[in-house]
């Protein structure tokens, strides 16, 4: 294998690892996919060191090592991309893809998200279902629907303007909770507390939390702890938003 080819393969493999980490795959999966892809493309071994916002990758062929570092920023979670990368890895392993096809498919990857007109009503319905599961009556479900749909619209609006994620969560929680207090002002429901609980559940950082524990259980301590830290910070900032809204509404204290 020529040095040029090794450089090129290493570049493609590190690109895969970078995308996986940026779009929210767990560390075990990142390591597994990049090692399998590297071996399928003809590298002898691939070693990875993953941390929360960068990764270092070394590839070895015929006693020649290439080490490269990539810095990355958070992109949010996109399972479509993770899924696509997993598929590229499996197809390469089966011998259907060579370096050329891998490069072509990697270049075509772009992050697509669901449009807001589907996302907003779906999240409203989701939180209304939570409210139903907690035992709320249908009036409470309706309040929850509107509170969380408005909250989701705010969240998408702020996210589009590239504000810090923590500020986004605090403002969203504030707006959502204000709307959810409707049941206290007009006594239409017997369970006015449940909309307040259910509507802010859309802010629960589920993926960072599950990824964090999953990483720590499988031995990737530092990535796991940093993800746990992020999940905690997100929770705290939404609590700040909720608290301000509840004090404004005079719900406690």
């Amino acid at each position: 294998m020529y040095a040029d080819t090794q450089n090129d393969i290493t570049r493609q493999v590190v690109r895969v690892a970078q995308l996986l980490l940026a779009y929210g795959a767990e560390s075990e999966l990142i390591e597994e996919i990049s090692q399998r892809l590297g071996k399928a493309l003809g590298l002898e071994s691939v070693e990875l060191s993953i941390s929360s916002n960068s990764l270092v990758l070394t590839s070895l062929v015929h006693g020649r090592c290439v080490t490269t570092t990539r810095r990355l920023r958070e992109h949010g979670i996109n399972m479509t991309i993770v899924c696509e990368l997993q598929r590229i890895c499996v197809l390469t392993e089966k011998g259907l893809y060579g370096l050329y096809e891998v490069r072509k498919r990697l270049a075509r990857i772009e992050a697509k998200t669901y449009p807001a007109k589907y996302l907003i009503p779906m999240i409203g319905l989701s939180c209304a279902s939570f409210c139903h599961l907690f035992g709320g009556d249908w009036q409470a479900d309706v309040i929850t629907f509107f509170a969380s749909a408005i909250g989701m619209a705010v969240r998408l609006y702020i996210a589009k303007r590239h504000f810090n994620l923590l500020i986004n969560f605090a403002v969203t929680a504030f707006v959502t909770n204000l709307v959810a207090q409707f049941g206290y002002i007009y006594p239409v429901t017997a369970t006015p507390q449940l909309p307040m609980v259910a509507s802010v559940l859309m802010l629960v950082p589920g993926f960072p939390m599950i990824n964090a524990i999953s990483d720590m259980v499988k031995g990737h301590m530092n990535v796991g702890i940093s993800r746990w830290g992020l999940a905690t910070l997100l929770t705290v900032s939404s609590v700040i938003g909720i608290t301000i809204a509840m004090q404004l509404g005079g719900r406690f204290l």
Partner: protein
Amino acid sequence: MELLWILIDDAFFAAIPAVGFAMVFNVPVRFLKYCAIAGAIGHSFRRFLLHFDFPIEWATFAAAALIGIITISFAKRHLAPPLMYAVAAIIPMIPGSYAFNTVIGLVQLSAQSEVSAELTAFVITNGLKTVFILGALSVGLAMPSLLYYRTRPVI
């Protein structure tokens, strides 16, 4: 018979949030229905166990392990990472109301001039439930790969 209706109701209303959150995580459209199926089965299985007076932590653990097994079979069929279905599916079981009560209790505690035993007990019970249910969820989800797929990849 009544139990059956409870379970069906539970499955339906757990499937909606599973799909909603799968959309937030940008799961491809063709996989959304599998997230819904896994979420519905998991949540109604937990309700089934709770009906027979299992403690909620263990019921959650068993339901999460069941979701782990189901999603691995989906993953093998579609060549997609199992966590993609699983995280959306367990979202309805996240202990949201316990977590909410814990932090609201904490804020109220810090606002009071003296520590009240009642409020402290409220915070501690809710906080412990939150932590243990979350732990049960994610360790239960990892169970298949910890016990069965120890040395080989799932796909």
